[in-house]
């Protein structure tokens, strides 16, 4: 399967000719593979990676179902038996899992520079650009043709920014503005980060931008950097963005802060899972190789990581030792 998809995406990247797999691409809801260099490495969408990330994120029902500001209705009271209560809690957990679905991590979209025709005789006829959009209702937005006739006569496909703006004009999405709001400017972001409202910024970003756009990635990166700088990992725990944060840190090989935070909060299993994710993503690193050789599990993984890769080795080892001494050895 991996080999097949590798060859398929090789074909796609180098011979980019026929879009034969329309049916397949529509059914496929996952991301495009990194076709060029890292085709065999772990991706964000691998089941094991997703599993680890969801488990690290946790499921704090009180935080996920925090009362939001909305039109108030009178409260409803129900009398339930124990079984009914368990059933209700189970349904709430399923709803919470749906709400905690992570926004996809995609490669940045390639700019569109496609000229359809050059008509010199139309030069100077108009002073403004004309945008022609296909507004059929049943067409997915990524298959919608949007072309621009420049005053110089060239007919070209619209750029990604223009596409987003035009689609927002004709098919407005709730919460999205046509021009990005000033919250995403540096100075405003700084103010919001000081108020510890990273989740609000990320929600705004997710609503405003497409997940493969440059601005989306930039805002996410800035938020993650700020969180890592101040160690405010707990703000995003049990939200849909924690997975993205962990992935970003693991790819940048900077999981020390997050590990220390987890150990301070006695989340041993989460720390072990994080180190396992690190080993998956960087199989050539020393800690991964040693772990592979020794077939290490659980706390030994932590010890190996602390020994070979970490900058805060002392703290991690101390925490592991205290855990082993104080708590009875529990089965993971």
């Amino acid at each position: 399967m991996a080999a097949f998809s590798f060859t398929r995406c090789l074909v796609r990247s180098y011979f980019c000719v026929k879009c034969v797999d329309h049916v397949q691409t529509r059914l496929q809801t996952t991301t495009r593979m990194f076709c060029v260099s890292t085709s065999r490495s772990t991706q964000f969408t691998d089941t094991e990676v997703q599993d680890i990330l969801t488990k690290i994120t946790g499921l704090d029902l009180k935080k996920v179902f925090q009362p939001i500001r909305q039109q108030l209705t009178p409260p409803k009271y129900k009398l339930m038996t124990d079984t009914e209560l368990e059933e209700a809690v189970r349904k709430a957990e399923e709803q919470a899992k749906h709400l905690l679905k992570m926004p996809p991590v995609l490669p940045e979209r390639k700019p569109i520079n496609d000229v359809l025709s050059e008509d010199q005789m139309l030069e100077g006829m108009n002073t403004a650009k004309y945008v022609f959009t296909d507004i059929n209702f049943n067409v997915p937005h990524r298959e919608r043709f949007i072309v621009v006739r420049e005053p110089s006569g060239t007919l070209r496909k619209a750029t990604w920014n223009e596409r987003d703006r035009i689609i927002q004009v004709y098919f407005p999405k709730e919460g999205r503005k046509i021009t990005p709001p000033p919250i995403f400017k540096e100075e405003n972001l700084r103010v919001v980060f000081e108020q510890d409202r990273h989740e609000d910024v990320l929600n705004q970003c997710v609503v405003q931008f497409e997940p493969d756009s440059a601005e989306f990635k930039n805002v996410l990166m800035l938020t993650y950097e700020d969180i890592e700088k101040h160690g405010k990992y707990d703000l995003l725990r049990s939200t849909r963005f924690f997975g993205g944060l962990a992935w970003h840190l693991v790819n940048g090989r900077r999981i020390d802060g997050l590990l220390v935070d987890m150990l301070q909060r006695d989340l041993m299993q989460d720390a072990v899972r994080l180190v396992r994710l690190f080993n998956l993503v960087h199989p050539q690193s020393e800690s991964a190789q040693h772990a592979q050789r020794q077939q290490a599990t659980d706390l030994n993984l932590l010890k190996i990581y602390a020994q070979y890769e970490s900058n805060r080795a002392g703290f991690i080892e101390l925490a592991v030792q205290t855990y082993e001494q104080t708590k009875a050895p529990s089965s993971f």
Partner: protein
Amino acid sequence: MLFYTGCRLLFVVAIGQSFACKHLNQHEGLFTRFVLQGIRDWKLISSAAPGLKFRALSSSSSSSSSSPPSAENTESPETLSRYADRPWEYLESEEYIERYGSKPVWANYRRNHKGGVPPQQTRKTCIRGDKICGNPCPICRDPNIIVHYKNVNLLQQFISPQTGIVHDPTRTGVCMKQQKLLNKAIETARDCGLLAVQLPHVDYSKEDYSNTHGAVAPTPAPVSLRSGELWYSWYGSIKPDERELARVKRIYKDYLKPDV
């Protein structure tokens, strides 16, 4: 001075009984000036009489100290207040806390209107040019309260804490001009991220992000036909009706090529 305080008390009590504004206009110009200044400097009558007396005395002392510049105060209600550059500082000052406490600025304001049901729109504006109306709205009556998008604490007072909706002007009593300014400031504050916004949940499961369609990918090169290949594959498989073919051949016999 005593007469002055007496007049002020009378005036304040008259307002409490919601007398109409035209009573004011019948007084002399001098008294109107004092009254205008009284509106500028008055302390609120929220508590019982001892509190009232204390406030009246303190207001008289403050008015006596500030009476020399009273001329420029009453000239235009739009004089620049001390907090014009940083309006949010006023909400932490002693003046503000003494005047409003922890309640919102519109808490003790009561509109004057006929009958039990108030008009569904408040007045258009309290300040026209130089003149300020009687019983101005909670924002216009205090020149230090400035509606600015950075003045988040003030804006929060006009938003319901449970629903997040901006209060109606019939509830807060502000004039329509100030309400418009408030709406704009709240929208700007929300855009800049100073106020919390409730956003819908975005679902990513139904979208396809492969970007392979011709609308967003480079246009594929045109397909060139190999020899013998038909443009549409079904061209070759259609067979015409024999009798139709014979009929057409008979009609155009003279124009057909010899081998057909």
